[in-house]
């Protein structure tokens, strides 16, 4: 499990928003667009990390714009799942869904169709 050449960072953008209105308690909604792998997963972690500490209740990852995620991205989501009360992966592509299933992580990451 590894990513691209470290000299060639994959293209990714994050939109981080409070998800209070979505449900009760403190929540966070993160929309990830592009490709996520070992070359930029640290950027996602530092972008979301502090917000996650303020909103430990619920984390919603909107993956509708995510074209690719490698195992280091999945490892990060699993780590987040242990840090928040509840995690939810939305709009997961079939390809990614299959990878998550093959790793036995569909329940851990609470993948919604």
């Amino acid at each position: 499990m590894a990513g691209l050449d470290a000299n060639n960072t994959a293209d990714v953008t994050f939109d981080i928003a409070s998800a209070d209105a979505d449900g009760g308690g403190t929540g966070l909604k993160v929309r990830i667009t592009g490709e996520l792998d070992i070359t930029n997963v640290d950027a996602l972690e530092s972008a979301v990390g502090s917000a996650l500490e303020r909103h430990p209740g619920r984390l919603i990852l909107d993956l509708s714009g995510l074209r690719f995620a490698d195992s280091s991205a999945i490892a990060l989501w699993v780590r987040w799942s242990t840090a928040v009360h509840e995690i939810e992966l939305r709009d997961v592509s079939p390809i990614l869904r299959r990878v998550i299933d093959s790793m036995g992580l569909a329940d851990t990451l609470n993948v919604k169709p």
Partner: protein
Amino acid sequence: MTESGPVSGAVAGPARGTEGEHVSGTERAAAHSRRWPFWLPAGVLVIGLVLTGVLVWISASTYSSNERRLLDLRVREAGADFTGAFAAIQTPLASAAALADATSGDVTKFIRFTTPYTVGATPTFGSVTLWRVGADQTGPLAVVGKPSELSATPSRAETFFASTAASRSHLGVVGLLAQPRPRLGYAFTSPGLTGRYVVYAESRPLPANRRSKFQKSSTFSDLNYALYLGSAQRPEDLLVTDLKKVPLTGQTASLSIPFGDNSFTFVVNARHPLLGSFPQRLPWLIGIIGVLLSIGAALLTLRLIQRRNHAEELASSLERIADENRRLYSEQRTIAQTLQHALLPETLPKIQGVETSVRYEAGVEGVDIGGDWYDLIALDDHRLLLVVGDVSGRGVRAAATMASLRYAIHAYAAQNDPPETILTKLSKLVSVGSTGQLATILCALVDVKARKLTVTSAGHLPPLLISDGTGTFIKGAVGVPIGVNTGATYTSTAVSTPPAATLLAFTDGLVERRGESIDTGLERLQRAATANHSDLDELLSRLLELRHDSDDDTAIAGLRWLD
């Protein structure tokens, strides 16, 4: 064992480093040759001074020739005045001589004619006398005005008159007569019909010290002048000048004015530059500016050279640093590869009835160590544990986690733990919350004699079992990866193997491609593995070709029953 062992990797590193140093040596020499020499500013200075010199010379000579041309023009203009004055001397004398000749030396008529020239405020002559030409001079026939100096020395008069009469112009100048005050004497002989007569006149005394200025209002007030008798410009021949000291210095122009058998020389120089002071100073100005510009250009060149050479030094030292970095990178990469291989088993256990083969292929061309590994652990003479694992992430941390998991599995296997127990125990060792890492592990217990497989998966891709040209993925229960949950439990799936079966366990690098479903990759593997009936080692080599520029690490472990 694998396609590139640690030994060959270690050899490749230093060899590359040496090559890098060699290249940097030649680059340094090239950088040195690109530097500009320090004689360049001196060259610039010399060129600047030479150019300045040429310009100064051109402007000075242009000035000088223009000044001379102007002075020549002025001396001719001024000389014309004198020519007129000399005509005023010559004409009365010639007329008087003609009169004397015509009247056979009529003294009364001579006196009447010449008297007007000796009287008045500015008489033309000091004295005018009439002489008869010939030997035995006794004195003048008539004297008008003051007595002439020549009368005192009749022999001199005789010689002078004779030479005047012989001359073509019939006009003679006796030269300066010193006493009592300097005067000029002129004689004119008529061409002569009967008796030959000579009219001799002396000028009014010359001014004291021969000094006489042009009038202030004169157009020649900007000139110094000197008038000489004859052409030699000797001090004793000086008639008149406006200077205290002769001869005239600097640029002079002269004009020769014929007078009888003699001549006058009129010499002038300019008191002030005739062209004005600016053209005169221009060469100096050009010289000063040129020298300053030359020095400035030389200093600028020096500065540029210093900067350029400094930049070259900087560039060459940056090149050296880059070379050093390349060498270090290559060295580090070699170390990483060496470490990677050191963490994999050096030798594979030999079990009667099966052959085994393994492959490890690094994905990224970088210094990072991957987290993939394989392992084959002999439990007794007919059982072995086949393990393939993949730690998420890269680098030393991933390698360290991989190493600790690998040795933990060895320890649990030594306790005879079944695969599900091994993974359950492993899950207590790693937590993604603390290390940020997950590990997927496939653990298969192979009973060679009983032809039985017991497979346990912690989030890992299923192994492929091939028999009789058919490949089947052993899809049992898949537990979560190690690290997700320290309380995770795992279950095993037991499978009986047909004769001459082949078991292949692998990591996702072998099948995963970006933008493609993992099932497509698995099908590709299945096809490639069943189409080939060569020996196990060859099969694994062929399967590695499926990777298709994968940037991911790949580990494969294969086992084949020999019956």
